[in-house]
């Protein structure tokens, strides 16, 4: 491999991609578009919140005489108000004619025996007849307890856990206090890693395939192959277009962080705790996984006759790369279970699984498992790059009808 040629291809691919109008629009426009979209999404949320702030009024006909309210009297529970009616006719008039209540509930005389409550909906009932159920339940619980038990016991019955404190017991038995949201904090690195990896692979993979298909369409392939080897061209493309994709993701990340720190009150202030083992291994895994998947995408994508065909062929690998995301809930609940162990040894899922497991519980993974998984990934990457460079050479020279898989493999074996 002549690195001077690789550098030339890398720089050409990087500079010609980042200067493209489409790239600039997507890179700089995507965050603006996302902000606009988020802004639009906030409007209905804000309107719903405003409506929530004004108490919703429901009617209640208390035939069991549990609530202790007089006719027309209103009691507020959180954001819901309950207006008491002596009979159903009054409640019905308020619901249908005056439209001052959203719905009304009837607590029957045999409520204590049956637990039955009848809900009545009308023309302005919002989310349905049971919209105020939680508040009504709380009101009933409060009234039922009344003075029958001590106020402290009543308070605990109504809210058994009102204060939460969290501690973490380390591998050495040391107990340390941590915030209740520390678990979410530990997910920041793996989720960020997975997001960065897959976004980079998808963006760079798309550029890789597009650039290669364009070269085939523009018929510059033979000139390139007469000046540099397929290995050099492929490596240059992986580096250059991977750089373009990564640069794009980093710009988005920087803009997101700027928004995060500029408007921190809008974002949950997380107690971010990151295991150093995960931080140390993440860059290695990122580069290896990108080389692994990128080369496979490029190798198979080069068999397409045009950009669309190449994308269809190459994106198969991108789909495989997203498979670990489906197992995230399983990994969160059991980071060292059988599924987690299996995923650790499969090259497609190893990067995300390793980072996730090391972030959640670094002491739960043995050194040999980390080293073994990394070794499998590196070996697979080496094999993928070798295979892809041969496929790339055969694919680039391919015109007309696509040969059989056997013929492709035969040609790949005899390629220089």
């Amino acid at each position, binding site marked *: 491999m*002549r690195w*001077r*040629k690789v550098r*030339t*291809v890398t720089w*050409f691919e990087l500079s*010609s991609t980042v200067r*493209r109008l489409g790239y600039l629009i997507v890179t700089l426009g995507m965050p603006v578009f996302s902000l606009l979209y988020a802004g639009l999404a906030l409007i209905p949320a804000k309107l719903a919140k405003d409506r929530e702030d004004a108490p919703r009024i429901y009617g209640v006909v208390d035939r069991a005489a549990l609530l202790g309210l007089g006719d027309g009297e209103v009691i507020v529970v959180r954001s819901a108000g309950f207006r008491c009616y002596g009979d159903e006719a009054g409640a019905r008039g308020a619901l249908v004619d005056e439209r001052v209540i959203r719905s009304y509930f009837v607590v029957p005389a045999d409520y204590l025996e049956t637990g039955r409550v009848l809900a009545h909906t009308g023309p302005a009932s919002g989310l349905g007849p049971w919209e105020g159920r939680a508040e009504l339940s709380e009101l009933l619980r409060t009234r039922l307890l009344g003075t029958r038990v001590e106020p402290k016991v009543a308070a605990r019955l109504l809210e058994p856990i009102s204060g939460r404190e969290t501690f973490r017991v380390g591998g050495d038995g040391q107990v340390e206090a941590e915030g209740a949201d520390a678990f979410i904090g530990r997910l920041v690195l793996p989720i960020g890693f997975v997001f960065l990896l897959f976004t980079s692979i998808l963006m760079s993979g798309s550029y890789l395939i597009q650039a290669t298909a*364009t*070269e085939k369409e*523009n*018929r*510059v392939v*033979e*000139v*390139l*192959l*007469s*000046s*540099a*080897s397929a290995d050099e061209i492929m490596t240059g493309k992986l580096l250059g277009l991977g750089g373009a994709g990564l640069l794009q993701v980093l710009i988005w990340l920087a803009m997101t962080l700027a928004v995060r720190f500029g408007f921190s009150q809008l974002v949950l202030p997380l107690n971010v705790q990151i295991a150093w083992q995960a931080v140390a291994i993440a860059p290695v895994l990122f580069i290896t996984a990108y080389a692994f998947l990128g080369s496979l995408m490029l190798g198979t994508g080069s068999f397409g006759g045009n950009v669309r065909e190449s994308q269809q062929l190459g994106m198969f690998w991108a789909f495989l790369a997203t498979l670990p995301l489906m197992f995230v809930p399983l990994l969160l609940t059991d980071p060292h279970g059988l599924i987690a162990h299996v995923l650790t040894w499969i090259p497609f899922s190893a990067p995300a699984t390793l980072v996730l497991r090391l972030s959640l519980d670094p002491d739960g993974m043995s050194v040999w498992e980390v080293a073994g998984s990394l070794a499998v990934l590196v070996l697979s990457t080496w094999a993928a790059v070798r295979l892809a460079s041969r496929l790339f*050479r055969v694919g680039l*020279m391919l015109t007309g009808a696509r*040969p059989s898989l056997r*013929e492709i493999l*035969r*040609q790949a074996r*005899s*390629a*220089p």
Partner: protein
Amino acid sequence: MTQVLVFEGVSKHYGDKTALSGVSFEVRAGEVFGLLGPNGAGKTTCIRILMDIVRADGGQMSLFGAPLGRDHDCRLAYLPEERGLYTKQRVIDVMVYFGKLKGLSAAEARARARTWLERLGLASVETHQVERLSKGMSQKVQIAATLLSEPELCVLDEPFSGLDPVNTALVRDLIGEIRASGRTTILSTHQMSMVETLCDRVALLSEGRRVVYGPVDEVRRRYSASELRISVEGDLPELPGVESVISERPGTHRLVLAKGADSQRVLASLIATGVPVLRYERVLAPMEDIFIRVVQHGEDRG
């Protein structure tokens, strides 16, 4: 003369199809070598093997006295038959990229590219996108990009296709300049008049086999009948050893000699008659005729 390229019994198969079958030829330093043949004869396969784009199944090959391989690619340049450039790029950027791939520094490639564009009358399109160029302009840009690195061996596959007569003459002169500078050219073309004008030696391939090989004049002589073209003042007298006479225009005749007749004796007889002789030449078969006779009719004269 130093051998730049040697092919010895080279063969190549694509699946069941034989692209080359025991092809041998050599290209000498400083010559223009014509690699000829009909479509599908194996010319492009030969070139791709030379460029290390595909690998031969058998045979011996050497380039600049060493085995074929990637070590030589900065000493070679290739203008493929199916031409193309990066259509969305600027002309100068494409040329600099190709120059850098051939081992030039960015500054050197840029300076040479500007000189070439100036020379080809394309200085005004230096910063234009390639897709804005006419077909002829693109062709010239590609030829310039090929020659930018001043390679020791240029492989030009159909360099005249799509060019108007003015640009055809320009490219013909460029090939002449390459030869004058002592560098070597392999020219693959279907324009046989260019082969006669430019090539020193040729190899004609047909169905993956070499069917004609040698210096152009010798090949033409080999495939020529015993014919003389003479121009005289007045009427042509009857001459011994001449089988028939074809009058091409007043005073100019083509003489078909009898089997075993000596052209020098015919000339001596003519002079002896006292008729003034204005022109005397041996008629050589045109390369186009040879091409058709060999490829279409399978005529073999070694």
